[in-house]
């Protein structure tokens, strides 16, 4: 594995350079130890292909998604306007992100506050790179393995992106299987709507246990996800059933980066 090249936008601009795309890392991708691995996998892909990208670094702040979903519109708009001021100042046009929550917020909720960008999810970028012939995906370690994809709500139902992650996974020569509740009928991992940051209400079961049980019933080698929060929830769910030896929870970016030994 080569060293990561992660240009910072402010430094690029200072050198008079402009990136083609801003990589929005997100809070999870910046701070959560598990999610940082996904972030690095995305960077490995970007570096491998030679995508001209940059990150905001310390100038990036939370998009405010969880605050908005929790009803704190003030905090959301404060976060959004700070980020928009920074990005508009740098003339950002296109954003790629590894987090469907950031994706949805940047794409759908920033325009009303003055932030107009083309926003894509990393699985869409990878799909584009494959289609353009810039990225050649081999099955590698995942050849013939059974992979089930868990749809993130904020990529799937919220924005109707169902095919990009599946098309990317299909390049791995793996056996892509589907849960009964998939695509538009996909069951949430349990993290969305600010649930990640609070205890669940009284019930009979945790949502992530319900979802992990459904995925594990297919005996997959890998549960593929496209969201750092889903990753946390599904990883915990797999641990709940003591299946972490048999079944790995991996982001689509990790599948591609690992298969290609980037």
């Amino acid at each position: 594995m080569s060293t990561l090249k992660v240009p910072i936008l402010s430094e690029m601009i200072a050198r008079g350079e402009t990136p083609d795309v801003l990589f929005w890392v997100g809070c999870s991708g910046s701070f959560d130890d598990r999610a940082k691995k996904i972030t690095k996998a995305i960077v490995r892909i970007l570096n491998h292909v030679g995508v001209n990208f940059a990150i905001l670094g310390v100038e990036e702040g939370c998009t405010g998604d969880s605050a908005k979903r929790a009803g704190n519109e003030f905090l959301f708009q404060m976060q959004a306007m700070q980020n928009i001021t920074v990005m508009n100042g740098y003339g950002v046009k296109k954003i790629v992100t590894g987090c469907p929550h950031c994706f949805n917020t940047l794409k759908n909720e920033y325009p009303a506050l003055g932030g107009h960008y083309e926003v894509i999810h990393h699985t869409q970028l990878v799909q584009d790179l494959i289609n353009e012939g810039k990225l050649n995906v081999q099955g590698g370690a995942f050849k013939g393995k059974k992979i089930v994809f868990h749809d993130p709500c904020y990529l799937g139902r919220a924005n109707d992106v169902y095919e990009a992650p599946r098309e990317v996974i299909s390049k791995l020569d793996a056996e892509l299987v589907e849960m009964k509740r998939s695509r538009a009928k996909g069951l949430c991992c349990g993290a969305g709507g600010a649930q990640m940051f609070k205890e669940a209400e009284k019930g009979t079961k945790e949502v992530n246990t319900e979802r992990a049980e459904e995925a594990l019933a297919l005996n997959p080698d890998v549960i593929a996800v496209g969201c750092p929060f889903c990753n946390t929830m599904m990883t915990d769910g797999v641990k709940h059933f003591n299946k972490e030896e048999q079944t790995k929870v991996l982001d689509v970016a990790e599948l591609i980066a690992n298969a290609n030994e980037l």
Partner: protein
Amino acid sequence: MISSILFCLLLIGSVALFTYNARKIRRNIFIGRELVLQGSSAERWKTMALVALGQSKMLTRPLSAIMHILVYVGFVLINIEVLEMLIDGAFNTHRVFSFMGGFYNFLIGFFEILALGVFVGVVVFWFRRNVAKIPRFMSPELKGFPARDANIILITEIVLMTCLFLMNAADRELQFQNYDHYKQAGSFPVSSLIFGGMLSGVEPITLVLIERACWWIHIIGIFAFLNYLPLSKHLHIVLAFPNTYFSNLLAKGQLSTLDSVTDVVAPNFDPAYQAKTDPNNPQRFGVKDVQDLTWKNLLDAYTCTECGRCTSACPQNITGKKLSPRKIMMDTRDRLTEVGKNIDTNGGVFKDDGKSLLGDYISEEEIWACNTCNACVQECPVNINPLEIIVEMRRYLVMEQSSNPPALNGMFSNMENNGAPWQFSQMDRANWTNEA
């Protein structure tokens, strides 16, 4: 002559009563806040054609979709026969359209087959609710009136269809017997099969009695049903159309932007910012009661037919939490009905009754359980959006009451101070770039 007068009085009375109640529902819906509609009307007509007329969202559950389409098509087309009954009733004629001859025979035969479809569909629906006890019909929010409501509708339809068959079969037998004005008209493929043998050779006077009784029960049943609609979940047969026309056409993930908040926040970033809302007429942040919802939310509530697809797809409900998106819609409608009655009894003005939708109907426990995953919105066959109501109530609790689960305070203050929901320093945000 007397029967014509009686019939016309019944017809006028039932249409008048229905109009009166329908206007009340319209008034109640427009208690809601203004809403800026997005998207073209062409797209709206298309959505209505697909979702309401074409029932495209029913297809995800094939058995109920097929049964529902039988009942729906039957209901719509058999109304053409009701038109004939209305004319017959008003002018004391018998089968006034029978002059169409062969085409009339075809129509009556076709309607009988449709009526059989309705009958089968309704019986299957009754069975699913009362014998098979499909889980989504067993939820706590359906106890009492809602369960009764469903059965009243189904049994009324069974009675209506049975009367139709019995009436036709008696008519057919009278035609055979060349009795009085019962001239040869219509073909009766279904009713002859069911009741033909039973009625064969029966005295004409008994047959006339059966035929007339069924005719009156059928038409009075229809008048009664019309007036039951405004009190019932069955109102969906009308409101599904406007409700899908006024569907949200934006990405499901997009929540509304509160302009009143932007007016406070934006001047910090742009001194030249022009306020979008009237500062002299401040509105409550979020939703406490039905008056705070938009008229589309309230139209949603009246449109809901309590099928429970939303609740059966809700991750929180599946895992035993109190939240049920269907209950959110039913509570909204019930509170709105209560507010409407309050307005009626207080001379057209709402008098504070010390109650509100949030608190007296919907609990905070329900509101905070939501994942905002949009499964309920996706599932709804008539494009109702329970999620909007939930998020608006959170807005009220957080921004007006500072009443949120304590754990969220940490997330809020971290985001405010460090720009992340966790307690990490903003300056460490790019540290991962230097980690192996």
